[in-house]
């Protein structure tokens, strides 16, 4: 005989079981959605080895010294360098930025007249600096900077600068630039690099 739901004790137990299952499925769906929301959409440099581990930063410092010498001979104009290979680091293959990993780009920044704040710098590289920035749905991102900058000063010094010491200087137009200890305007109170 057909039994109507809810008319017997067994029917009530059945409803209870159904509700428990429904609650469980709702919870799992909610947890799934939360996981999707909390998981980063993308992390910069993911899948690329950290050059500070996989690379050779000592070699990069040596190359930077050679590059600095070459720049001094051409009045710090990189376009006049006799050997463009000097401006590309082998460890650029580990750069966080996809653009920096290309073979036809310089691994170094050569500040020009548009960056008077960096006029004391001959060149620097951020190949060994990582933001480790993750992006999330919505408008959230988090960064965990690590690594080093290598800075070549026009006074002949080459420095390995930890990212913890690098600051972001904001210009009048709202853009920020890398600011290293020793640069005019450097202030430890400035915001940290890319944080």
């Amino acid at each position: 005989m057909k039994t109507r739901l809810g008319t017997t004790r067994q029917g009530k137990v059945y409803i209870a079981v159904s509700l428990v299952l429904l609650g469980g499925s709702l919870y799992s769906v909610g947890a799934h959605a939360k996981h999707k929301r909390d998981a980063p959409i993308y992390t910069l440099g993911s899948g690329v080895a950290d050059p500070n581990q996989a690379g050779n930063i000592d070699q990069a410092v040596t190359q930077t010294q050679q590059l600095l010498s070459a720049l001094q001979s051409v009045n710090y104009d990189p376009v006049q360098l006799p050997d463009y290979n000097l401006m590309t680091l082998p460890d650029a293959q580990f750069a966080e930025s996809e653009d920096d990993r290309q073979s036809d780009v310089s691994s170094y920044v050569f500040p020009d007249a548009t960056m008077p704040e960096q006029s004391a710098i001959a060149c620097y590289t951020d190949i060994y600096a990582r933001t480790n920035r993750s992006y999330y749905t919505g408008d959230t991102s988090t960064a965990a900077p690590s690594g080093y900058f290598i800075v070549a000063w026009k006074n002949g010094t080459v420095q390995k600068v930890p990212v913890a010491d690098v600051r972001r200087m904001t210009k009048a137009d709202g853009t920020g630039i890398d600011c290293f200890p020793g640069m005019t305007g450097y202030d430890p109170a400035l915001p940290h690099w890319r944080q």
Partner: protein
Amino acid sequence: MNSRAPRVLISPYSTVRMLTSELLREHLCRNVFCSLVCSYEGEKENLMKVHRIFTMLAAVSMTVPALACDTCVLWTQTPFPFPVGGGKYIKRSIAYWNRCVDFDNVPPGHCCIVPVVNSNYVKNGQVVGVYSRSFCNSSTPTDVECGSPTSPPYMANPVHIDQGIYWQNYSPVSPFSLVARPGSKKKADCKCDVPEKK
């Protein structure tokens, strides 16, 4: 007399529903309430109701995390400008700016919105996307412009820092150019690791 044989329609949905129902029932039968549940042979309709809810919830869970790939390029590092042609691209500076970013087509209300610069993202002569760049129109941003009720203005607590690399191309055979060829490859650089929104 109607000589036509009665048609039996078995829709795929019915088949799936039936199979799923059986699977669900089998699952229920394995638990401690097996004897109770299985005694209700006449209550398949109720099982179907549960199944329909399951199906609905499954459908919801698959559509919620959709992201539009078109917006991915907004957070792609932006070489600006990126010249066409051979030669070595010489990096001249790295600049950072705060910008409005929406990873899900919903621009955050607390970002700077004035002025906004929308430009084509040109790479190797191809328009591969669009990026936006936003500044506050005052040196001292207000909460309205750049902050949210729960965070201070962006100068103290940046919403986002993006990086732009200014390149200079030196090549005797290929002069500097910013001409974008037709035939946009807008999604070429998309790095979505989630399904594209249909």
